[in-house]
């Protein structure tokens, strides 16, 4: 990693579960603010960003890169983090990057001793009795998780069935902004960092086209 990159401050934001914001510099965590509750993202995002930057002892204008978790996640909260990341980057003229939130969890699991020879199943709550999931084979030399299946959304029973004959390990780790930042730095090293910040909803908007437009208003649960 060049000195130039290691000196950069990265603001990392994820609202796929709770609200988690970190300032990272050269692999080091300068600050991290976590609100675990899976609600009130709109109320908290401003304070979380302001506090993370203050605690890191820097000014907003010193942020070089903004890294945001793209989910997958249920709709409303996820969007708030992405909207905030897009606007923060615009506001300070920083570069904007997207990372799959499940990658951050996989990264933390491997770092915390998950076996690099057994596929790792990462899941996250998708509400409506469903889970988001992805399967990882390990990490690159830089530490970027290697996704081999997913991300997808499934009923837990269907997921069990799908993966029944596979030997898997699992993790209970929750997404943290610092892990998002570490994945980004690894991807930057590997040359795979992505500017795509499109939300990974993995579900269609909650509406169906009525056969007869006179039936508007009837919804299906998805």
């Amino acid at each position, binding site marked *: 990693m060049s000195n130039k990159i290691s000196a950069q401050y990265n603001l990392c934001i994820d609202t796929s579960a709770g609200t988690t914001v970190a300032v990272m510099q050269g692999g080091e965590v300068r600050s991290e603010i976590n609100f675990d509750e899976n609600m009130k993202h709109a*109320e908290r*995002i401003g304070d979380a960003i302001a506090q993370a930057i203050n605690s890191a002892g820097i000014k907003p204008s010193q942020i070089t890169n903004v890294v945001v978790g793209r989910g997958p996640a249920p709709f409303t909260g996820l969007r708030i983090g992405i909207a905030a990341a897009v606007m923060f980057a615009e*506001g300070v003229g920083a570069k904007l990057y997207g990372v799959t939130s499940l990658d951050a969890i996989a990264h933390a699991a491997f770092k915390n001793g998950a076996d690099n020879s057994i596929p790792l199943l990462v899941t996250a709550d998708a509400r409506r009795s469903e889970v988001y999931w992805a399967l990882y084979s390990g990490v690159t030399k830089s530490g970027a998780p290697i996704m081999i299946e997913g991300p997808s959304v499934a009923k837990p029973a269907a997921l069990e069935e799908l993966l029944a004959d596979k030997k898997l390990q699992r993790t209970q780790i929750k997404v943290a902004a610092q892990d998002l930042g570490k994945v980004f730095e690894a991807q930057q090293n590997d040359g795979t960092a992505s500017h795509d910040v499109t939300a990974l909803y993995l579900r269609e908007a909650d509406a169906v086209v009525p056969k007869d437009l006179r039936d508007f208003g009837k919804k299906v649960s998805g």
Partner: protein
Amino acid sequence: MSYLIREALHTDLDQLMVLENSCFGSDAWDPDTMHSELVAKHTHYLVAFSTDESQRLLGYAGISKIPGNDQADIQTIAVSEQSRGKGIGKALMLKLLQQAREEQTEEMFLEVRADNSAAQKLYLDLGFEHIDTRKRYYQPDDVDAWVMRLQFANSVVGREPIVLGIETSCDETGVGIVRGNTLLANIISSSMDEHARFGGVVPEIAARAHLEALKPTLDQALAKAQISLKDIDAIAVTNGPGLGGALMVGIGAAKALSVATGKPLYAVNHLVGHVGVDILERGELKTPTVALLVSGGHTSLLLVRDLLNDVELLGETIDDAAGEAFDKVARILRLKYPGGPEIDKAAVGGNPKAIRFPRGLSLPKDMEKHRYDFSFSGLKTAVARWVEVAEAKNEKFSVADVAASFREAVADVLVTKAVNACLDHNVPRLLLGGGVVANARLREVAQERCDANGIELRIPALSLCTDNGAMIAALGSQLIMAGRAPSSLHFGSESTLPVTTVQSL
């Protein structure tokens, strides 16, 4: 309490001295000092008088600025005891600061008693900083003085602020930019086409579209206004009423932009924004005014005595919004979405009196309880039944007659209630807002009835009537020019935010 502020005259001296003595007691200036302050070339004194019959002096304030000097001092400020807490002191200060700024003042100083926290708060809100303390300055009370300073370069007080407004309460992503009362940019990106195949606004689709549209809409607005984010003095954002998931996209964006740029953030009321937008066309909002706001999400009748301080909800729809009724009836008639323009087209040549559809909440018993409320659900059902019956009998009917008769019922009830509100409250003005204002028949009926009743009708340009960011920026600008403190970073979306909450803190 209404009051007017004007330059002080030396003939005001006697009244000034009465107030001076009652406010400052043993610290009061003597009449000679006061007189020389009033007549000196290097001072500005303003007085506030009540506008009722008593025409009492409510307060006064003055500054001293030596020509050629880029510093100025607040000499004094006094507000009579029974008139405090009504914003008179702030209004006097704002005018003086504006004058000082216009005379190229760079720094403004004042002293305030260390034990006068109310005055200190006023000065802090206006952008003054506490820079020094003079020990035991006020005698014989033995009280310290705070020395406070305002640096005009670091503050917008006294000049027209450049405000960015973000609106995402329904299916329109709006970013507007204003300078004071002047419109600089108003860019709207609508997801309306994406909702068409569903026949109505789908909240999740609207929210997804906001996320995609925000940055391009902001970039376009900045380009149109020919400014960069650095030039912005403040950010305003709609935090309600509206669709929760949609509002939250704008709120998250606005908060991050505020933290990134260090610019203050104002969370403002969408409906009050619709009223305030008239300022961008006329340079002022004439009050009192009745406002009829009609869109796909709202049908509200407001009495606005003062945009920032006195907005009253007279009535609103108890079921569907008027715009929703247009969409639903359009579906019944197998017309496209959005229903308003389609029904307008279909109604051409139709007889508006062909079918007497019901006027919701207009019967005498309803008028007692719901004089200013609306209901369109029954009207929509009446149209559906009428069409069903005709179709069941295999009768050929004129879609133009049905469309025209339905549209007449909507326009009639909207305008009747709005004109009633004007007449009942003796208010000679009616302001229309919201997307349904595009409806040609509504505009005609409103004009006819307002003309007949001597009511001045205001219909802003359509791009300012539909949901837009310019109206949000304009309301933010009004709040700033009135010296209001910014919102915190903690506010959330308020789907049912009442019109009495102009700004959420």
